[in-house]
C-alpha cells in the first residue's frame, strides 16, 4: 500500500525525480524501512497507456518545457528549444531509454590520470574506482535483468543487428553481440519477455524493458514507506540558518505552491533540471546557489559524443522491427590515442520510425538528396555512436536572465561546444561505420548529426576535494550534508557507455550510505 505523508512531516527523505536515480533510490530506501516522498514533475502513465506512435508518444512523455541553447553544437541551430530528448513522467527517462546496460571500464574512472591534461578539457578522476563499483554493478544487473549477466540469455538479433554483425565481421571487429540489455529475454520479475515490437523509445507496452515506473516504484510503494507524488514541479530547496536543507517548495497539479518538509533531500531531475534547481535555490547564505561553493554547479555538461550512420542497401532490411538498440560493437570503446583522440566509443544499432527519421536524418534538409534517402526507408540499416566526450567548464547549464516558466522559475539555458577530441572521435566513428556498411554492400550512407541529448551528464560532478566538484563519492553535497545528488549529473566524466546502469548502481550504493548515516544520526 502506497504511503501518504503530511507536508509537515520533517522525517521523510524527499527525492526529486522518479527516473533511474530517483526511482531506484526511493525503492532502496523504502525497502530499508525509510519513509520517502518522491516528487515527480510529470504525470503518471502506466505502461498500458504508452503509444506505438512517435509523435503521439513524444507528446505524452517528453520534457517539452521551454529551454534555450547556445554554443556551436548543431542542436542549438536545429532544435533551439529542445536541447534534450528526455522524459517528464513517472519513471523519468527509464520509460524512454533503449535499455543498454554496460559497466564502465576501469580507466574511465581515472581519466585525468589516464589521458593526462588536455587543453580545454576539465578532466578529473572519479573519487571511486571500478573495484568499488563492481558489487553495485552486480546488484543493479540482477535488479534490472540485464541480458548476458546472471545466466540470462542475450536477446535474439533482429535484421538491423544482422547487418551490423555482418559488417563487423567483414571489418574484423571481435566484440559484437546483441548487448547487455535491461530487457527481459525470458519472463522474470513478473514481467513479460521482449516481443520485438520496435517501440522501445516510446515506452515498452509489454513492460519487458526495465523502467522504475513498473519495477522500483510499485515495489517501494508496496512497503508502505514510499509515496510518489506526480505533477509536482520542485522550484526551490529551503534551508535553515545552519545551512541544512529543511524542505522543498513545489508547484502542485493545480499550480499551487506547497512546501514538503524533509530530513534529507536528494536531487534526481536529470542533468539540466538538477543544477537548475540548485542554482534557483540561491539565498543570502548561498548566493551562488546550493552546494555551489566550488562554482561547479551547472558546469561540465556532457552529452556523449554521438551521431548516427544510416545506410541504404539494394534489398530490404526493415530495421524498425524488433528492439531499437539490438546490438553493439565494443572494439572501439578502448582508450587508444593512436586513433587521434582519447577515450573510446561504442557502436549500437538504432532505428527511428519514418516520422522521426524525417525529423532527425538531416534537420532542415530538403530536396531530392534528402527525400531519396527516405524513399528507401525500408532498405535502411542504422547505428548510433556513443562515445566519451570531454567535460568543459564552459559547457554548462545556467539560469536564463529573462525568461521564466509558468511558475516564475528561470528557464535553463544549455550551452555546448564540441571539444576537438569530440569532433575527432565522431569523425573516426563516421568513417568506421561507413566502411562497415560499405563492406555489406551499402549503396549510400548518411553521417547523421547528433539528436537532442538523451545522455545528459556531469553538471553536479563528484570529486574527492570540495574545491573541484559539487558532491563526494556518495553523491552527498560537499557543502550540505543532508543534500544529495542521485542522477547522472554527479558523473565526474562520462565514459563511453550508456549511463543508466551506473546511475542505478550509484543509487543503490547511495541508499546504503544514507541508511547508515541516518542510523548513526549524522544526518
Amino acid at each position, binding site marked *: 500500500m502506497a504511503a501518504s505523508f503530511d507536508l509537515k512531516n520533517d522525517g521523510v527523505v524527499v527525492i526529486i525525480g522518479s527516473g533511474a536515480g530517483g526511482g531506484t533510490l526511493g525503492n532502496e530506501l523504502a525497502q530499508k524501512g525509510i519513509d520517502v516522498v518522491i516528487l515527480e514533475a510529470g504525470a503518471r502513465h502506466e505502461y498500458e497507456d504508452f503509444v*506505438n*506512435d*512517435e*509523435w503521439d508518444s513524444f507528446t505524452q512523455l517528453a520534457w517539452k518545457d521551454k529551454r534555450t541553447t547556445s554554443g556551436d553544437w548543431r542542436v542549438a541551430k536545429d532544435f533551439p528549444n529542445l536541447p534534450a530528448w528526455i522524459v517528464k513522467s513517472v519513471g523519468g527517462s527509464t520509460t524512454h531509454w533503449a535499455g543498454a546496460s554496460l559497466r564502465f571500464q576501469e580507466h574511465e574512472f581515472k581519466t585525468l590520470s589516464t589521458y593526462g591534461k588536455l587543453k580545454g578539457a576539465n578532466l578529473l578522476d572519479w573519487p571511486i574506482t571500478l573495484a568499488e563499483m563492481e558489487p553495485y554493478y552486480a546488484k543493479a544487473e540482477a535488479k534490472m535483468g540485464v541480458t548476458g549477466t546472471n545466466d540470462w540469455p542475450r536477446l*535474439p*538479433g*533482429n*535484421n538491423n543487428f*544482422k*547487418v551490423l554483425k*555482418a559488417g563487423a565481421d567483414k571489418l574484423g571487429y571481435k566484440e559484437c553481440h546483441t548487448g547487455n540489455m535491461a530487457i527481459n529475454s525470458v519472463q522474470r520479475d513478473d514481467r513479460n519477455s*521482449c*516481443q*520485438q*515490437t*520496435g*517501440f522501445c523509445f516510446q515506452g515498452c*507496452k*509489454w513492460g519487458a524493458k526495465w523502467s522504475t515506473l513498473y519495477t522500483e516504484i510499485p515495489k517501494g510503494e508496496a512497503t508502505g514507506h514510499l509515496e510518489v507524488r506526480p505533477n509536482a514541479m520542485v522550484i526551490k530547496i529551503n534551508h535553515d540558518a545552519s545551512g541544512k536543507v529543511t524542505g522543498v517548495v513545489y508547484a502542485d497539479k493545480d499550480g499551487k505552491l506547497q512546501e514538503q518538509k524533509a530530513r534529507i533531500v536528494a536531487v534526481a531531475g536529470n542533468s539540466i533540471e538538477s543544477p537548475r534547481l540548485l542554482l534557483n535555490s540561491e539565498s543570502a547564505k548561498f548566493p551562488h546557489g546550493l552546494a555551489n561553493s566550488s562554482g561547479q554547479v551547472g558546469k561540465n555538461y556532457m552529452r556523449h559524443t554521438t551521431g548516427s550512420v544510416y545506410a541504404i*542497401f*539494394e*534489398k*530490404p*532490411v*526493415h530495421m*524498425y*522491427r*524488433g528492439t531499437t538498440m539490438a546490438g553493439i560493437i565494443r572494439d572501439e570503446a578502448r582508450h587508444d590515442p593512436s586513433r587521434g583522440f582519447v577515450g573510446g566509443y561504442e557502436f549500437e544499432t538504432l532505428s527511428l*520510425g*519514418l*516520422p522521426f*527519421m*524525417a*525529423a532527425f536524418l538531416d534537420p*532542415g534538409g*530538403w*530536396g*531530392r538528396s*534528402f*527525400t531519396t534517402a*527516405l*524513399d528507401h*526507408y*525500408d*532498405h535502411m540499416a542504422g547505428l548510433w555512436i556513443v562515445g566519451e566526450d570531454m567535460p568543459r567548464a564552459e559547457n554548462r547549464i545556467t539560469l536564463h536572465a529573462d525568461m521564466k516558466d509558468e511558475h516564475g522559475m528561470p528557464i535553463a539555458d544549455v550551452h555546448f561546444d564540441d571539444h576537438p577530441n569530440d569532433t575527432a572521435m565522431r569523425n573516426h566513428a563516421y568513417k568506421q561505420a561507413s566502411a562497415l556498411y560499405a563492406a*555489406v554492400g551499402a549503396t549510400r550512407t548518411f553521417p547523421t548529426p547528433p539528436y537532442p541529448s538523451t545522455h545528459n551528464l556531469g553538471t553536479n560532478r563528484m570529486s574527492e576535494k570540495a574545491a573541484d566538484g559539487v558532491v563526494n563519492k556518495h553523491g552527498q553535497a560537499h557543502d550540505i550534508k543532508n543534500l544529495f545528488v542521485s542522477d547522472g549529473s554527479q558523473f565526474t566524466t562520462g565514459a563511453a557507455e550508456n549511463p543508466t546502469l551506473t546511475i542505478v548502481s550509484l543509487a543503490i550504493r547511495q541508499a546504503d550510505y544514507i541508511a547508515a548515516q541516518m542510523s548513526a544520526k549524522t544526518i
Partner: protein
Amino acid sequence: MVTIYDGKPGLSRRELLKRGGIGALLVISGSAVISPEHAWGLETSALKPETMATLIQMARDIYPHDQVPDKYYAIAVKGHDEQAGKDAAHKAMIEDGIADLDKKSGEGGYRALGWEDQRVAVLKQIETTPFFQAIRGGLVVGLYNQKEVWPIFGYEGESYSKGGYIARGFNDIEWL
C-alpha cells in the same frame, strides 16, 4: 473550414479542363483546388485557392516523393489555411510569400515553371525566409506523420496490437 473530399469534384472533366487549362495538375474552381485525375478536392476558406495550389506544388518540390500522390501534400499544407483563418499575420505571411514566389518565377508564376529544377532554383532564393521555413517545418510532421503515407515508404507503424514482430519477421533478412 477546410475539407478534403474524395469522389467526384462536382464538375465535369470537360468543364475542368476548360477552366484549368490542359496539362495543369491542379485546377482552381471557385474556392477549391481540384485534382481532376485523382478525384479529390480541397476547399479553402482563408487563403486564395490559387495560393493553396501553389503551396501544394511547393510542398512537393521541398519534399519530392514521386510515388506519393498530391493528395497527401494537400493534407500536409491545409493547416496553413486553418491558421490563416485565425491569424491575420499568418495569412499575410503565406499570401505574401506565395506572391513573392510567383514574382521571382517570372511570367505565369511558380506553377508555370515546367521543371522541378527551375522551381527549386526559386525556392533556393527564399529558403532562409520565415515563410519558407514555416512551410518546410510544417511539412516534416504534416507530410511524414500521415499514417496513410507510411506504407508507401514500407514503414509498418504500430505493432503492439499485432504482437510485435517476434513472429512477424524481426529477423527475416535473407540476403546477407
